[in-house]
């Protein structure tokens, strides 16, 4: 089972290496489209999808994420699962991110998609904490009410037994 | 503020141990009920 896992990672490492060294020279940007969220992301997660215009099948779909539009700074690779064309990405901090997709067709010809810009801006912390404390107050009130009323009942029951 | 590695390890390990204890407890209770004929 362990070998299975390392194979899994190894394959993607190979894929990533391929993309860095060979693929950029033979790309046709026109036939691969990446679409992402339009609005500002407030929760740090979003889903992007890759569509191919004139290809029946896509292999090795990978999303590249970078913090600049030239994809020179801190580029990260996210491989798609199996032959799915949608990828859910998560855990992004505040900032603007640039995304593009890479894929191969059945002949091994590789493609790069358009670049999508995604802005992540989390809710302000004061807003989150306000809601948190409102919730906390209602919750404490509820628990206290329930436990007090329950105790009163238990006491009155014992009282009746003593009479 | 990130959760520290130690807290993370404890959280997951504790949850896993508690989860594993559950079936033991449930089967134990069942045997007790079964012996004292109080299942239903």
């Amino acid at each position: 089972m362990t070998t299975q896992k390392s194979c899994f990672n190894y394959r993607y490492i190979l894929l990533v290496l391929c993309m860095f060294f060979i693929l950029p020279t033979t790309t046709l940007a026109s036939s691969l489209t990446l679409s992402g969220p339009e609005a500002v992301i407030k929760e740090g997660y979003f889903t992007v999808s890759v569509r191919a215009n004139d290809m029946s099948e896509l292999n090795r779909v990978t999303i590249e994420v970078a913090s600049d539009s030239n994809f020179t700074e801190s580029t990260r690779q996210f491989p798609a699962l199996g032959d799915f064309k949608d990828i859910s990405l998560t855990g992004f901090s505040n900032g603007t991110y640039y995304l593009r997709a890479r894929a191969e067709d059945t002949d091994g010809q590789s493609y790069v998609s358009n670049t999508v810009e995604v802005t992540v801006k989390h809710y302000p912390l004061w807003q989150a904490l306000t809601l948190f404390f409102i919730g906390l107050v209602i919750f404490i009130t509820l628990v206290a009410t329930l436990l007090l009323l329950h105790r009163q009942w238990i006491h009155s029951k014992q009282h009746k037994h003593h009479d | 503020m990130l959760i520290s590695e130690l807290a993370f390890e404890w959280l997951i390990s504790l949850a896993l141990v508690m989860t594993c204890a559950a079936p033991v407890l449930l089967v134990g209770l069942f045997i007790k009920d079964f012996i004292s004929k109080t299942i239903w």
Partner: protein
Amino acid sequence: MTEFALETSTGITIIILFGVFWVAFGYWLGRKNRTHEDFALAGRNVGFAFAAATAMATWVTSNTTLVAPQLTYQFGIWGMIGYSFAALGLILFAPMAKRIKELLPNGYTSGDFVRLRYGNLAWLVFIIISVVYAFGWLISLGMAGGILLESLSGLDYHIGMTTILVICVGYTLFGGMRAVIATDFIQALIIIVGVSFIAYWLIDNVGLESIHSNLTSEHPKLLDLLFPAAVMFLFNNIFFGLGEIFHSNVWWSRALSFKKGVAYKAYLTGGLLWLPIPIVTGFIALAAPQLGIFPPSPDMIGPTVAAAVLGKVGAVIVFIVIFSALASSLDSLLAATSDLVTQDIFHKKLKPKASDKTLMRFNRSCILGLGIMTWLLCLPRIATLGALLNFAGAFVASTIWPIVLGLYQRRLTGSYAACAMAFGTLFGMLGYFVIGFYVAALVSCAVSGLICLVGIMRSNKQFDWNQLDEGEQIHADK
């Protein structure tokens, strides 16, 4: 070409084996059922072991195995801790269950209580809330079943969904509450063993340390204890869970079916047993980035990781665990909802003189009818119907205060309770659409609480608890 974690034939074999087993088991348990009380409430004599297991297993819905990893994948550490706080619903219901069992020694449903305690208007509002919630849940379970079986084994959505419904309706029909509770016990064991195995395997092979360091460098937000969105909906989630448990007949009928003195400790134990499970299932999602797994949609993350790391074995385990989780909730919901319809609508409103035999027959047809309706609603596979459950939070959270106060407080009257539930729901929905999903249950609970407070301050009536016990009246009817 789509690769599935499991061959379709393997998937079908597992389903058929389990299906035959559950139905036969249900039939075997059902032989004991003599009266409607036997059928609907397992003779009101369920022992501690089954009681604790059924409380836990029913709360382990498909959501615990799917949504807990999803929330963890999206919100990180708070996603799983927040989800595990739903155990508070079970824990807080424990004292109430004791009270319910003593107040309504002959009661059948939560609707019974609301009608006797608050009268017809509040009863009507309550039934609408219950039905909306029950159908939302039933449909989401049915659809989740079909979609999951399809994504794991390539089994056609309609076949998968139909099979799950047929199996659950089948054994509930034969065995009634006894079958529901006994199957819950076994399903609980399967679920726990399955998820623990997967989590243990991940810890052993990937390591907690490397998962933590990978997340710290690549997805630090997931380890952030001050993740705004996650902090924001924490209590909303809790109120949703409380509302679900406090109002739903699924939990009331269980409290009523337990042996005397068992209800309190059973719910408490069930809650404590449930508490760590979302953390374990959620943890599975945290390992995903380290393994290079990025799913097509976040709700697929749990099964995907398990199937990816464990291969065939993992896929089989996931398949069985999810199948069990779906079944343990679906059967409870079918049984509890048909009890509600049989008792509250048929027996109390339409045919007060119905004999025990008629009631049992009607209850059975109700289970079948609900199954068919759920099946019809699941047929089109409209994802938006499943999303119904998202704003169900506004509905159920409005019942929290009226139920708690109704059980213990003599001054709250029916009209205020009806208002609290109606306006709570209304404002909760408003909050959902105007502000966001993360306030629906919170607003609903707050508004209904305020109305209840006004109701208690302004009322000078004292409810007589003896009005709740209809025991003799039922016997006179026979």
